[in-house]
């Protein structure tokens, strides 16, 4: 089941714009390897779930998967063949706002070659260009 918030203050949110780059959540924090978004946009809960299933099927209990994004934003839509007006549409799906540089997934407990293949498969499900990253050097 796709992720969504348990409780919200407002059901509908304004669209907003994805401005700037990720100033936080842009480094591998919990795992050893990560998948970094190189573009900004909305990542739907379904896409996050698709990536999770792909990675889980590849890892198969050997390593650990971390999902670093959460769909906090509701995206509304109006039904087809509806006249304009009559207010804002109903929530259609939930999405995470992703800025360039955001780490989307992290894996741990598997060798780098396996992590590369795993996250390459996940990247195929993502609506952005992504790249494989490792932990930053500890200096």
């Amino acid at each position, binding site marked *: 089941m796709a992720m969504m918030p*348990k409780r919200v*203050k407002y059901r509908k949110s304004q669209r907003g714009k994805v401005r700037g780059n990720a*100033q936080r959540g*842009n480094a591998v924090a919990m795992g*050893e390897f990560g998948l970094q978004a190189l573009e900004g946009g909305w990542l739907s809960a379904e896409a996050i779930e698709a990536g999770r299933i792909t990675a889980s099927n590849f890892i198969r*209990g050997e390593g650990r998967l971390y999902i670093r994004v959460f769909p906090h934003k509701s995206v509304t839509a109006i039904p087809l063949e509806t006249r304009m007006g009559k207010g804002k549409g109903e929530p259609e799906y939930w999405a995470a706002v992703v800025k360039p*540089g955001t780490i989307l997934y992290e894996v741990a*407990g598997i060798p780098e070659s396996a992590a590369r293949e795993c996250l390459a498969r996940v990247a195929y499900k993502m609506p952005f260009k992504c790249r494989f990253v490792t932990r930053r*050097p500890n*200096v």
Partner: protein
Amino acid sequence: MVETVPLPTRPRDQFGSKNARRLRQQGLIPGVIYGHKEEVVAVVMSREDLDRVIRKAAHIVDVEYNGKTEKARVRELQWDHLGKEVLHVDLMRVSKDERIVIGIPVVLRGHAPGTSEGGVLDQPIHVLNVECPVLEIPEFIRVNIDHLGLGQAIHVKELTLPPGVVAKADPDAVVVHVKAHRVVEEAAAPAEGAAEPEVIKKAPKAGEEEE
């Protein structure tokens, strides 16, 4: 022990993001030297020299500026949003007889038998904060996991640290453990109408009736 790497720098008299960007375009990285209640010096260094420091994971550098050499600790590296380029370096003066608290990477060695029994190796602590003399900073902390079975853990207090090095973390914190693989049960599809989160409403004030 981590070796000390020389880091030649020269004073910087241009400040601000515009000048910093121009310096980076020339292959230079802006930085600052501070500490020990001495003057704060804005410096600039070549990217190649800094890359050498990062590649060798040198925590302590011999920073050269204004014709003198001082020992300094690489306190902070500012990276760009993609983590490709270093934007700025903070260098903090240290003396040879000082003890500092610093994060040291934890490196696992061996193969945990617990993973063959269906467990998943999890390492909650990748970098351990330790207190040690400036000139005796360990390169990494090696943890042997050859004996780690399913459900077993290695805590901070069980680590073998080099002499003079003291862990500055909770002694009962788990460094690495093998835990049973959690089978995620696929949740049943939610009923129509239940697919929306609960909306938080303001509680009515006392004495105020809901209309």
